[in-house]
């Protein structure tokens, strides 16, 4: 199969949807003439012109609100944030306007819009530029949250997000844009809200999502060398959460480790842990373990970054602990 980069997969998803639906347009900082701060929209200004690929000033709150308004009035905007850290400035329009419009208007006005861009830490960018916002937005009824981890999923899910009738947050990473993966020629759509069991095994379930799942894969490979066969679930969508896939796996392996790159307090792992103890308590043979980023602001120095993030060996240890092998 054809191999392309993550950024190309996103570009194809947006371009294909813009070709098939005139209502779809892209706007954000540096998306047009600069071809995207991370080159995701490379060539799109040339193909679609400045009416549909639109450079904005640095004005997140304003252009996000303009996007939501356009969505209320029949268009299907894709709003790119240079990173989700800057979407904090636009959180009012995402949370107070987009998420609630359909409900507040008694179903008359919805906001079919995609908010996308890189999310999470990307090395030495310090506290304000290194945050993971999955839990922050997943907390809000009315929003959907997607966190692809590879080019294939990214393309199929972004197309689904653009066609979805609800506001969707689509979270990428600067550190994934260059990743390569198999993506078929031609169109396909992946369902929102469906997790992917990327590896099957009887011994322990590991749930993860987004770019940190690469560490999980490495840990699973290392554990396999020691005879431990884990099952890996890539959530792909955070909200709605695919509880069915999670429960089925936990009922099979009886053990669960969750790995996420965001902060621990009130996080995705907190929610999953609640649901699992509530729905599969009798199947659990050990306490649920998790690995998250440190419960601190992200610091600049390399030594502090190393301390803040879980590593492959930590994931391996957590699995062994869940299997009472330590």
């Amino acid at each position, binding site marked *: 199969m054809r191999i392309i980069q993550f950024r190309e997969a996103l570009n194809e998803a947006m371009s294909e949807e813009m070709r098939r639906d005139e209502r779809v347009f892209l706007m954000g900082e*540096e998306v047009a003439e600069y071809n995207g701060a991370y080159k995701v929209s490379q060539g799109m200004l040339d193909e679609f012109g400045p009416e549909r690929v639109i450079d904005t*000033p640095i004005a997140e709150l304003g252009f996000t609100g303009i996007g939501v308004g356009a969505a209320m009035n029949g268009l299907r905007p894709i709003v790119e944030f240079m990173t989700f850290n800057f979407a904090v400035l636009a959180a009012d329009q995402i949370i107070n306007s987009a998420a609630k419009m359909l409900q507040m208007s008694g179903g008359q006005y919805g906001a079919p819009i995609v908010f996308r861009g890189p999310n999470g830490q990307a090395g*030495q960018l*310090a506290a304000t530029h290194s945050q993971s916002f999955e839990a922050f937005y997943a907390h809000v009824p009315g929003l959907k949250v997607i966190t692809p981890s590879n080019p294939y999923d990214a393309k199929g899910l972004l197309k689904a997000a653009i066609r979805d009738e609800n506001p969707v947050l689509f979270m990428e990473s600067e550190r994934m844009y260059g990743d390569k993966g198999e993506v078929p020629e031609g169109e396909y759509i992946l369902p929102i809200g469906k997790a992917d069991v990327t590896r099957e095994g009887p011994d322990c379930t590991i749930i993860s999502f987004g770019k940190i799942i690469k560490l999980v894969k490495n840990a699973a490979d290392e554990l396999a060398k020691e005879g431990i066969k884990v099952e890996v679930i890539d959530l792909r969508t955070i909200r709605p959460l695919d509880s069915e896939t999670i429960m089925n796996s936990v009922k099979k392996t009886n053990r669960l480790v969750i790995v996420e790159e965001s902060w621990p307090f009130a996080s995705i792992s907190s929610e999953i842990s609640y649901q699992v103890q509530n729905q599969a308590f009798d199947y659990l043979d050990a306490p649920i373990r*998790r690995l998250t980023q440190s419960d601190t602001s992200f610091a600049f120095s390399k030594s502090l970054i190393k301390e803040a993030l*879980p590593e492959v060996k930590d994931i391996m240890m957590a699995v062994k602990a869940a299997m009472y092998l330590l």
Partner: protein
Amino acid sequence: MATKTKLPFSKAQYLKWYEDMLLIRRIEEKAGQLYIQQKFGGFCHLYIGQEAVVAGTVSATTKDDKHITAYRDHGHPIAMGIHPKYMMAELFGKSTGMSKGKGGSMHMFSKEVNLLGGHGIVGAQIALGAGIAFAEKYKGTKNVCITSMGDGAVRQGILHETFNMAMNWKLPVVFLIENNNYAMGTSVERTSNVKDLSEIGESYDMPAKSVNGMKVEDVHDAIKWGAEHARAGKGPVLLDVRTYRYKGHSMSDPQKYRTKEEVQSYKEQDPIKMVLETIEQNKLAGQKAIQNIQDRVKAKVEESIQFAEQSEEPSPEELYIDNYVEADYPFIRDNKF
């Protein structure tokens, strides 16, 4: 063209400007090289070309005045009298850095000289600067806050809210736009119908001026005017200081949005070159004295690099320090097994 007219500033002032600006320039050139050699990581937004803005600002303010700026902040601590080795150590993420290696390039802070940051969120410091000024007024001091922002930051909504309140409450703040004409790849004229940024003050009745930011004397005079206005209790002013960055936005910028000729035209009015010419033409210092300045700068740059390279990284436990004031805050520790 040596003129007989009396110079508006003292010999000492010209020499200090020259030395400070040269030090910033040389430190930044080195920082750029070291970044390319991957001696440090993260973003690296160089100040090269804009030196006159901070040099003229610092010379026109007092030690008790406050300063706050965006992430293009390597020059500020140096002009404000911090030895560049502490700035360099911060770039390297070392424990001896200005923010203990926790903030990096975008977050230079120094309580010692009243530099309240380096801020990475475009526009955030516009309101913070007004708040700092609010506190000065509240406490009844005569200090002002110089609040710097880029031309790109001017389009953030927070500017509108802040300008309105700062005027309403007559806060002692000088809003300084370091207008280098680009926000990443976007020029000022592509972002608004209002291309003359000093006009922005009008709708708030805020006095405003455009300033040649390549001339340190002009920057000094404008800041002096603004600071006196604010000190006198008359409220904020807006300065649109026209400057230029010679390098890319950060280190990974192909710069297709501007021409080589444009960059060259600004290099011809280089702020450091102009001050040196004034010094030479007016015989404010002989070749030997100028050479001494250059040697001192060179030595400081070398000392800074050595200091940064030889300093220690912060210890892992530093991650948990300074998040809360309490030393015994009960962190969740699920990041390591």
